[in-house]
């Protein structure tokens, strides 16, 4: 499942609910960790590293994680979508409020 607007990459909270449980668990764990390598994911979820890699790749394809290869093994970190205002109020209202 891909975020609706291509101009805002990353996942929204609702995307979490649409993921398969296996991918969601990895993403939720990454949210707490900040970032992790495929090996660390494999250790946490007690699965072969290859399988962890498959899940991380699937998340990357959806734009929900990004990779960093600066030092050592590739690490994956969650890519959050930007929170947007839920409603568009009448134009000009922000200027008036902020001017007050």
């Amino acid at each position, binding site marked *: 499942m891909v975020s609706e607007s291509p101009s805002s990459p*990353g996942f*929204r*909270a*609702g995307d*979490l*609910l649409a993921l398969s*449980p296996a991918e*969601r*668990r990895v993403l*939720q764990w990454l*949210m*707490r960790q*900040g970032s992790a390598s495929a090996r660390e994911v494999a250790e946490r979820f007690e699965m072969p590293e290859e399988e962890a890699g498959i899940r991380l790749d699937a998340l990357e394809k959806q734009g929900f994680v990004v990779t960093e290869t600066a030092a050592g093994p590739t690490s994956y970190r*969650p*890519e*959050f*979508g*930007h*929170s*947007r*205002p*839920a409603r568009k109020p009448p134009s000009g209202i*922000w200027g008036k*409020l*902020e001017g*007050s």
Partner: protein
Amino acid sequence: MGKIISVHSFRGGTGKSNVTANLAALLARLGKRVGIVDTDIQSPGIHVLFNLSPERFRYALNDYLWGKCRIEEAAYDVSGVLEGRRLKDAGSLHLIPGSMRTGEITRILRDGYDVGLLNSGFQELMERLELTHLLIDTHPGVNEETLLSIAISDILLLILRPDQQDYQGTAITVELARQLEVEQTFMLVNKAINPRDFTALKQRVESTYHVPVLGVLPLSGDVAILGSGDIFALANPDHPVTSVLEAAAQRIDAA
């Protein structure tokens, strides 16, 4: 690693901010290092219970979200509320308030903010202040911040009143917590009317949602009169409301 506890309710005015402040203080009284974040950016307020006036905070959560400060710079040591209240070995309390400036609240609504920053702020705060517990006071209902805070929580505490609208709404939140596989969900019933019915009420709620109820708090004139002006359990150590809150804090600490 510390525990993240989100305090939430589907509907507003259930007592989330009061319960959050009281549980935080009671956990600190058990010697814990406790952080509290007001993620209710649209209608912040928990700072009032800690007697932290908006003139006294230079930075709020909003400033951190706009990259104006580090998360710990927006954290105020409010352990002062514990002082002079027959406590030895108390821990500490650190509050991140929401901004009370009109322009800053509207700016968040207009521009949004980087949700990733909010998430890493929670993690950094726990690390840098060596917190044992981080309590997140939320805006009612299901929205982006709430879902994310539920998704990263070790414990979700749902507050509900004995009210048909609360009952229906709580079912939705419980379902979301199940889908997100939150490790531990608890409930607390607040503003209950008939003390003779409390045990039955607790059992009814538990068997409806299959979630443990930490306690049933009465609709209390004493709580209402205090009007969020102080932390009830600290101001009234021998009150029956305080015993229920203490038992809840102990369950959370043991979880």
